[in-house]
């Protein structure tokens, strides 16, 4: 009988990383721009040593449309549809942020009802964006079922968006000084119903992923971003909070009446992929909390700033029946809303992070310069630092955890 001899080989993978055995033999690998894990058109140029990433250079710009140049050539209201296409997974939130930035320039007071509608828009957009983020993230990590759960919910949300704005995807709902139309009859009830049934689904998703051994092995401890790095690279939103920084513009610089609502801001501890996943599930629950409070105490009144005669075009029924409103509409369409001179920077807490608009106005209806600060652009800038040292298989998981969208990255 042959003698059985036991040998220990240890962690082979680790040894190949630690020793300089393969150093110098690097391989160039290109991912994207058109690749399912890049969630759009991001391209990564990488140098690999075996399975380990040594160097990574993200290449952007494949979705660059020159939005900032376009903004300089049209009136403030004309630009609203372009904001849909920034973070195209949460167009309503972009619309609201843009409108608020311009209103800040005009120092316009917005009626309570309009603010409540906008809060609803923002939070529904957040839920829709995070549902996609979580679902697709499961898919990135190899758990396909989650996607089916979250996407069927997102479909229901889109039906609500369609009822509100007339479009499922490119909503273009806000106008400078208000929103395009009031909420439809019974819509609040349907939103409320949606909230009731989305929560069990989030719990279901959690049971599928949160304590899933495979999912945890793939995400916990992977792609750790320290607090210092997160701040240094200008991360915002759930990605920043996952690294333990308590910053949520809804709490810290309340806008749109967010100070009236009671909600918690989830803060992560480790800043790894797992924490970033947990953030999104919890934020959906908090958004539902906010939505319920808004619906419970929904203000009456106008859905647009009635006294802003040189900014907001009145509703169609008034235009067709009254001379003054007809002229008002004509002036706003041809000249654009009348804006004072000045410089304004406004940021709001969007699903992906802080979306900012910097507007330089020289008066009149067309901005002189409009800069869009896309949160995904800043969130991705950390890739050069984050990816080296990780295995190639982790790239999918890390990219998915950052939950970026190239529309606002490339603008």
């Amino acid at each position, binding site marked *: 009988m042959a003698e059985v001899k036991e040998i220990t080989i240890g962690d082979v993978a680790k040894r190949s990383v630690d020793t300089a055995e393969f150093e110098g033999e690097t391989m160039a690998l290109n991912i994207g721009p058109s690749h399912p894990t890049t969630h759009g058109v991001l391209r990564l140029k990488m140098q690999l040593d075996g399975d380990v990433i040594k160097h990574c250079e993200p290449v952007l710009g494949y979705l660059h449309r020159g939005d900032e140049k*376009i903004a300089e050539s049209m009136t403030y209201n004309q630009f609203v549809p372009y904001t849909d296409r920034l973070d195209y997974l949460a167009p309503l939130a972009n619309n609201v942020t843009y409108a608020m930035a311009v209103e800040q320039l005009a120092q316009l007071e917005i009626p309570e009802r309009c603010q409540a509608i906008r809060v609803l828009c923002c939070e529904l957009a957040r839920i829709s964006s995070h549902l996609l983020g979580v679902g697709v993230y499961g898919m990135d990590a190899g758990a396909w079922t989650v996607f089916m759960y979250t996407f069927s919910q997102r479909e229901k949300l889109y039906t609500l968006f369609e009822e509100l704005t007339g479009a499922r995807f490119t909503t273009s709902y806000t106008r400078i000084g208000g929103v395009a139309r009031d909420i439809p009859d019974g819509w609040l009830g349907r939103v409320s119903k949606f909230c009731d049934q989305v929560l069990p689904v989030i719990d279901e998703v959690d049971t599928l992923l949160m304590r899933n051994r495979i999912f945890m092995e793939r995400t916990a401890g992977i792609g750790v971003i320290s607090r210092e790095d997160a701040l240094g690279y200008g991360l915002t939103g759930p990605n920043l909070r996952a690294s333990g920084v308590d910053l949520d513009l809804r709490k810290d610089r309340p806008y749109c009446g967010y100070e009236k609502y009671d909600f918690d801001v989830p803060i992560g501890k480790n800043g790894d992929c797992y924490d970033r996943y947990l953030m999104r599930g919890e934020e959906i629950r908090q958004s539902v909390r906010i939505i319920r409070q808004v619906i419970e105490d929904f203000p009456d009144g106008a859905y647009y700033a009635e006294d802003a005669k040189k900014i907001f075009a009145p509703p169609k029924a008034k235009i067709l029946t009254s001379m003054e409103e007809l002229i008002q509409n004509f002036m706003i369409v041809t000249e654009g809303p009348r804006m004072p001179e000045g410089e304004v920077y406004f940021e709001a807490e969007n699903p992906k992070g802080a979306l900012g608009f910097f507007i330089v106005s020289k008066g009149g209806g067309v901005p002189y310069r409009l800069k869009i600060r896309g949160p995904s652009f800043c969130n991705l800038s950390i890739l050069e630092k984050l990816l080296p040292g990780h295995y190639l298989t982790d790239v999918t998981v890390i990219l998915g955890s950052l939950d970026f969208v190239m529309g606002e990255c490339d603008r």
Partner: protein
Amino acid sequence: MEDATLVKLTETFDFLSVRASGDHSALNCPANKLFEVAQSLRDDFGFDLLVDVTGIDWDAASPRFSGVYHFFSTASHGYLRVVANCEDDINPQLPSISAIYPAANWHERETFDMLGIRYSGHPNLKRILMWDEYPYFPLRKEFPLAGIETDLPAPDVVETTQAKVKSAPMMGGPFVSTRSGPMSQAEPRARDESWTESEEKPTEPSDEAKR
């Protein structure tokens, strides 16, 4: 609270001046002192988050280019805008602050790409949104909205296909509004920039606009 920071800042650095602003605290800073100020903003004043870096082209005015920085403090939750004018109108230049705030790295690359402001001391100053060989700075005011016909980034493709990056057709839309001029001309309308027998081909911008 924001005002107190502003007072303290102008006391510490006497070359800073308060800038007119409708929203956040704002300062003008000489370009050569920018690095020093940014360092102090992060270390002494708690502005730990650089949220945005961009530039403005003031067209005919001089100084023509300004760099605009927005800082945020996670402690006081206040913003600070710092504006630095580029001394040279032809070759605008600013010091890079990417050594202090890594976030500035990509923002500065974008501003260089779009406006042609060069950041001295930047570790990797190349185009980020347009391709590397692109010859223009699209956000400069003289650059036409439709774009300019130019070569494709890949020379081998150009050789085989003779294809070029064409300027966008402007007939039928988008509806463009201009910032000045009489209302009959400024109102939103499709600006057809193509040429016919009666209308001449628009001239290309001068070499100055090129890189």
